[in-house]
């Protein structure tokens, strides 16, 4: 009598790519809006971006049900924080909370690949990048999801970020202005959609700066 094996998986990959780039006084967070399963497209207009706090936005790709549950968890915890501290959570604080929330389910993980972007307490752009179980790092830019292998090398080349191993510690945020960073994001997604079947349809771009949060869209290949 062989032990019964499950014939269903609790996980699925709904695809998609996310990118975030930090600037001196802004942060750009972007993700495509395609949701897939296997070789099917489920919908072309699904947002992977979630505003967690006034100056803190998260983009996540991976298994959509886990991403949704994670977003709800963080939103609920943020509400409690606001009740207890009478203020919004800062981006670095939310970054730690996300890491802890992910590790909490270390032995049945949230299949969610996240980038967190926003402004830190001094108004400077910051980006945090994560794996599925909460390992995280503050960086100048990052990409996650199905197109990340195509996007990251291109960002490395264009943003020429200094190595974090150098001393003295150098600033990772890009000297590019906001408009240039947005342009770079659009280029990067247009390229990723050419070769990654899970990336396409539309990009949702969210920009966080001193004046607040704004959103724009760009059409991508639908094939």
């Amino acid at each position: 009598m062989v032990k019964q094996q499950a014939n269903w998986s609790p996980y699925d990959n709904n695809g998609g790519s996310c990118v975030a780039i930090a600037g001196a006084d802004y942060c750009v967070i972007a993700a495509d809006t395609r949701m897939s399963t296997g070789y099917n497209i489920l919908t072309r207009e699904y947002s992977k971006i979630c505003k967690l706090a006034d100056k803190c936005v998260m983009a996540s790709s991976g298994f959509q049900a886990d991403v949704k549950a994670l977003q709800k968890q963080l939103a609920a915890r943020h509400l409690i924080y606001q009740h207890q501290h009478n203020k919004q959570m800062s981006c670095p604080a939310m970054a730690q909370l996300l890491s802890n929330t992910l590790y909490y389910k270390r032995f049945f993980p949230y299949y969610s690949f996240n980038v967190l972007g926003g402004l830190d307490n001094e108004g400077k752009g910051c980006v945090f990048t994560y794996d599925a179980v909460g390992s995280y790092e503050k960086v100048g830019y990052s990409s996650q999801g199905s197109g990340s292998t195509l996007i990251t090398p291109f960002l490395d080349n264009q943003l020429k970020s200094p190595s974090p191993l150098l001393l003295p510690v150098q600033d990772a945020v890009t000297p590019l202005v906001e408009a240039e960073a947005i342009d770079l994001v659009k280029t990067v997604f247009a390229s990723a959609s050419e070769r990654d079947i899970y990336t396409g349809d539309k990009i949702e771009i969210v920009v966080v700066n001193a004046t607040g949060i704004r959103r724009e869209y760009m059409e991508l290949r639908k094939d």
Partner: protein
Amino acid sequence: MNFMASKQPENSLLGPEADSQRTLYPYVTGTSVVALKYKDGILMAADMGGSYGSTLRYKNVERMKAIGKHSLLGASGEISDFQEILRYLDDLILYDNMWDDGNSLGPKEVHNYLTRVMYNRRNKFNPLWNSLVLGGIKNGQKYLGTVSMIGVNFEDDHVATGFGNHLARPILRQEWHENLSFEDGVKLLEKCMRVLLYRDRSAINKLQIAKITEEGMTISQPYSLKTYWEFSAFENPTQGAVGSW
């Protein structure tokens, strides 16, 4: 009797007895559900078959039900799990009505509830083996969403489950547009259901179309689609075939 004997609590997840409590595979299943938004609300179609593996066991299964005043639920997958979901929703609507405060749960809320139920069951490794379609209209706002057995959910202008995703969605992507009339919506759904009838082996030619508008939900009497089998290629299928088999 040994009063000191320790006993596993009945609902323990440990041990081989617990495994028999978890869903491993579906037994009686319904096939695709297809739905779209139209001018006045939502149109949804599903056939009335309940298959037991490859046997067509039940031919009068209503796979679409009204939920409260504003929503319509269609399900594919395990029929008994669908019936259990209807029991959960009965309780939900009952408690909502008991508040007697003039408020009522809209389709968005019901969809969210169902998503949480499906996801939580998936977390316990004991899923409700269904793909659900939840449509409705409340205060002029149309809503159409779907949720799978592992909790993947989204809303769109048209949705389908199972084979419908492969065969019906492409047709809907090509031919759906905003503010379809009722007649056009029904024609479009029938076109999808006909393709499914030709190509999905678990589909049967007995379907219902349900409509939900601000006025309420109506569901058609079961009826059949006209099909065409006189293609010359079907008349003598082996005519051009090479070889002995």
